[in-house]
């Protein structure tokens, strides 16, 4: 289990991370979502012991990142952003080097190597120079490097950035597979990547966590009113504008008329569904309904709202 409490990081005068707190349970896949520069990478760098926090605590079970850095690093597999590799080495040499530092040598290394080759699909490239591998393979090599010691915790910084759609699907599948046994904490600035893979989403904006929950929870917490788009013919404008008198839960928003067709927007609360009432009202007033589409807020809208709203304050 990872427990982060009041974690902050300042780069000279810039506050990159502002007193964030969260927990991640074993066996959970958690997505860390935020725009570029929101503080994701800084947080991950602190969790892996690469940067020292300005203040706050990071605990892995009973271990503390400041005092037990190496103990924690033994349990973590980390894929840094941009996935730096020693490109002049061959794939197995690179993995052997990293395994060596983790004291996995000889027969144990051979076992670990065949495990990560299997899990990350590296069969064809093991003897190739990393420089000659494609981007998709490099990403897998980075993952294999993070997993060579079979860590309990995987921290992945933008694991699918720059991959083509097929590779993204593959890596996603791999992460899901891994998440069955391991705690996976992955960051991304693209919602779809995260949404398809993780159990829980944390959204960070300007160094602060603005949302934390499963995608259903986020939807119900942050969803605004429903906008109902209706296209009708033959409606008298005053009957449209005064709908609230008859159907109190519905608010008139706008009306557009073009070629006899009236496009109307109504708004109602997310917990209500007055469409039947609207239909009956339309019939009473002799409207011909051509189309009726409710537009609910999706996660994308929530993400955009959460990460742009505070920009306006700044």
């Amino acid at each position: 289990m990872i427990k982060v409490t009041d974690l902050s990081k300042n780069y000279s005068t810039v506050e990159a991370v502002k007193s964030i707190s969260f927990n991640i349970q074993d066996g959970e896949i958690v997505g860390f979502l935020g725009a570029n520069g929101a503080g994701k990478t800084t947080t991950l760098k602190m969790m892996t012991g690469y940067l020292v926090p300005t203040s706050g605590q990071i605990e892995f079970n009973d271990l503390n990142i400041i005092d037990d850095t190496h103990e924690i690093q033994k349990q973590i597999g980390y894929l840094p952003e941009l996935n730096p590799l020693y490109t002049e080495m061959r794939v197995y040499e690179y993995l052997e080097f990293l395994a060596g530092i983790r004291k996995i040598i000889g027969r144990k290394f051979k076992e670990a190597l065949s495990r990560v080759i299997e899990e990350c699909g590296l069969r064809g490239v093991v003897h190739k120079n990393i420089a000659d591998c494609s981007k998709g393979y490099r990403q897998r090599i980075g993952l294999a490097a993070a997993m060579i010691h079979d860590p309990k915790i995987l921290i992945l910084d933008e694991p699918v950035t720059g991959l083509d759609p097929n590779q993204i699907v593959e890596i996603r599948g791999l992460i899901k597979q891994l998440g069955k046994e391991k705690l996976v904490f992955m960051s991304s600035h693209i919602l779809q990547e995260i949404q398809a893979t993780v159990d829980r989403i944390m959204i960070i904006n300007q160094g602060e966590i603005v949302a934390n929950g499963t995608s259903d929870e986020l939807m119900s917490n942050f969803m605004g009113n429903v906008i109902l788009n209706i296209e009708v013919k033959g409606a008298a404008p005053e009957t449209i504008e005064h709908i609230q008198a008859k159907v109190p839960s519905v608010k008139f928003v706008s009306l557009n008329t073009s070629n006899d067709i009236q496009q109307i927007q109504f708004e109602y609360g997310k917990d209500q569904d007055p469409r039947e009432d609207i239909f009956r009202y339309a019939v009473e007033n002799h409207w011909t309904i051509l189309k009726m589409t409710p537009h609910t807020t999706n996660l994308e809208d929530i993400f955009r709202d959460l990460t742009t709203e505070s920009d306006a304050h700044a």
Partner: protein
Amino acid sequence: MHNIRIIYKRELHEYFNSPMAYIFLVIFAVVNGYFFTNTFFLFGQSDLRMLFDIVPLVYLFFIPAVSMGLIARENNTGTMETISTMPLNTYEFVLGKFLAGFCLILLGLGATVIHFITLVSVGTNVDYGAIFSGYLGLALMGAMYTAVGIYASSVTDNQVVAFIIGVFLVLVFYMLDKTLVFVPHSIAGIIQFLAVDYHLSNISRGVIDSRNLIYFFSMIGFFIFLTIQTLEVRRWK
């Protein structure tokens, strides 16, 4: 020790997997060989003094070039992050790198043994002791310059900048001895003790004094310590 060896092996592997090590070694051998044989048969003396005079000059550029990439390249490509998030102590990382750089210097120095063989086969009354101590002095100087070079490499992520800083620093230590006539008498002693030439010439004369050894070892230790501190401080920024 285990981790130092792994870092050391990887670094040597990198040197010899690229043309870099070969180019360095060939240039080192050719430059030294040229200046040595140029005058060797003119003097008619059975010693390697010419070689021992030229190597420190070649070192001034050779060693910063060998060591410029040791850490700067890792900073530049981001592999420093991979390394820093491994259960590895900074001192193990720096020592492994230092030993790899030093190993390349020793190989370069080893190539000059050919001149020693020439000397033994054509010369008379060869002073083996002086030659041994001369090589010892050059090895110590090489180790010290490597430590300086690795420090220069740790303060930047640009290899060219690391090279320039490295050349500047070793040049300072090399030139200190030459500035003695310009400094007040009271500090001349200190300046002289800091100058690398002073200690090298002592050892080359065949006098292996503990003071000279202490100088070299403390300089090596000091710059390795500075390198470790530089890397540690980055985590706190």
